[in-house]
């Protein structure tokens, strides 16, 4: 197809034979764009704002209840883990807030973002334009998954940082007494808090993959979000029924609260590793399912 170059520059001379190059670095542009689009949505920002508010509310409540010199939980009610230590050390507000948001709040926001990832693009119709751009189905799904994981980390860090700031402002800080009774410096306490935030973010991996898979099943963003969050609630309920404890080791939230083991000396790795393994398993299974589904799907929206 390249005989008549000079004669007719109009359209015969078009580079029909040479398809444009795909530059590996340029291909990363989609990931950046994906992050931008996700974190510029006011919905994402509202979710993060709600997460940031939780530690503030908890901190103020604890401060108000203990300002007369009384102790937390004196009435007999049980609060979230670590709540009684907050008055001794503001750093414990980080652990309390993560323990309080991890069962529902935190995963709910992940469910919303993951569920909307593909289905939201489909219902807005933008999916077809991304695919003919051509984003490539695998590349687009990878970009989506990466973004959801970044959101998991951002959401966890939002809670942790808000708790750290609130705790430092309202309560004394200093040496940290671990669950095992050992006392470590505030610096090491901070490091352990950071490690806990990382583990909590990784704990959400399984749900993120599950949400992404659900997102490839439907053309309705709302339906995918609702299904993911609904599934989370169902699993949490099943996880709380003792008669069903044979299934519990296979449920993604089962080892979520194991992050507390990072506050022991020496660290108790058993449940922590089980948790990470389970999340990796969920991510592998539902990540592949999402890929298989998305690659074979007719995009009609």
């Amino acid at each position, binding site marked *: 197809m390249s005989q008549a170059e000079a004669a007719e520059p109009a359209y015969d001379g078009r580079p029909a034979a040479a398809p444009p190059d795909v530059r590996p670095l*340029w291909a990363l542009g989609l990931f950046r764009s994906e992050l931008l689009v996700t974190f510029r949505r006011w919905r994402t920002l509202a979710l993060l704002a709600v997460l940031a508010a939780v530690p503030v509310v908890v901190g103020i409540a604890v401060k108000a209840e203990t300002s007369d010199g009384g102790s937390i939980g004196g009435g007999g009610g049980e609060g979230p883990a670590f709540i009684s230590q907050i008055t001794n050390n503001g750093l414990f507000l980080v652990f309390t807030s993560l323990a309080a948001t991890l069962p529902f709040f935190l995963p709910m926001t992940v469910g919303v973002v993951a569920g909307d990832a593909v289905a939201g693009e489909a219902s807005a119709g933008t999916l077809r*334009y*991304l695919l003919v751009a051509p984003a490539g189905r695998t590349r687009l799904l990878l970009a989506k998954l990466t973004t959801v994981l970044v959101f998991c980390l951002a959401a966890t860090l939002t809670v942790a940082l808000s708790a750290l700031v609130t705790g430092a402002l309202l309560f004394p800080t200093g040496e940290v007494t671990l669950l095992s009774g050992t006392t470590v410096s505030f610096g090491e306490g901070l490091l352990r808090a950071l490690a806990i935030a990382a583990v909590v973010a990784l704990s959400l991996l399984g749900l993120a993959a599950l949400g992404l898979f659900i997102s490839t099943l439907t053309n309705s963003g709302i339906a995918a979000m609702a299904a993911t969050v609904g599934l989370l609630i169902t699993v949490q309920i099943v996880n709380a029924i003792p008669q069903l404890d044979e299934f519990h080791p296979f449920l993604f939230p089962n080892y979520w609260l194991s992050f507390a083991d990072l506050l022991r000396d020496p660290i108790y790795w058993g449940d922590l590793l089980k948790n990470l393994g389970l999340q990796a398993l969920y991510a592998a299974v539902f990540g592949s399912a999402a890929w298989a589904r998305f690659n074979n799907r007719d995009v009609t929206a």
Partner: protein
Amino acid sequence: MTEPTAAPEDDSAVISTQGLTKRYRGGQLAVDALDLSVPRGSVFGFLGPNGSGKTTTIRMLLGLIEPSGGTARLLGEPMPGSARRVLPRVGALIEGPALYGFLSGRENLLRYDAADPTADPRTRAARVETALERVGLAAAAGKKARAYSLGMKQRLGLAAALLQPRELLVLDEPTNGLDPQGMREIRALVRELAGDGSTVFLSSHLLDEIEQVCTHTAVMHRGRLVTQGTVAEMSAGARGRLAVTTPDPGEAARVLKERGVSDLVTDGEELTGDPPPGDLAELNAALVRAGVRVRAFGVRRASLEDVFVSLTGEGFDVAG
């Protein structure tokens, strides 16, 4: 536009399909054994009523939908297999624009451009501005897309198709939702793009749009290709209708019938019918000799609509 070449037909075809078929789950046959051939450099009108399978065909060509049978080639390469190599050279507007409402027009284009792994990020901003200017949106580029009117959204969709020089533009109903002025501008733009050397594949349910803009056309009806060829051939294929306006319709009808005009229809002062072979001036003279006062006399050129009706035996309505 169709230069004679020694190469086989398929080589010059920008789009070619063979037996392309799509049957949706549930058994509905949306596209039935389509053999389409779009020559390079043409402005190709893909015509058919709503629901005739145009959009499904376009989605198969662009790799969005897997065909249930047959093959499709785009720029000479098989689809959807070569999507990543072919699609950067194709600009598309599919079933109306789709935008991120919370992003500005400019940011929408930046996003779509970032999705193309062959698009150079260093020239991205400049290419986006050029595309915005080309569709007349430069002034509104900073506004949030959700505040755009339908016409502006349509233009932004077109701009997304023009982010890079394209060998082929697939435009599905590009003038939908535009006012007459907007339609004229888009049609002018389409002609300009074709002049630049892009092949334009334009789907429409508006017959006069195809007649005004296109060099070639194909007609779809209920998932099947009814015909394809140049617009000139198609219009020539259908014979024009004789139309006479007169205050004496009764007498005129008698004379015309006598002279061999068939399928005569009288509508108030206007009569139409299929003219007999021969010089029509004789017919006019006969009318005048019979004392019929003639206000207007002539042959109406067949429109694509007439062609469509004669091909399908049906009006141009939504397919059931």
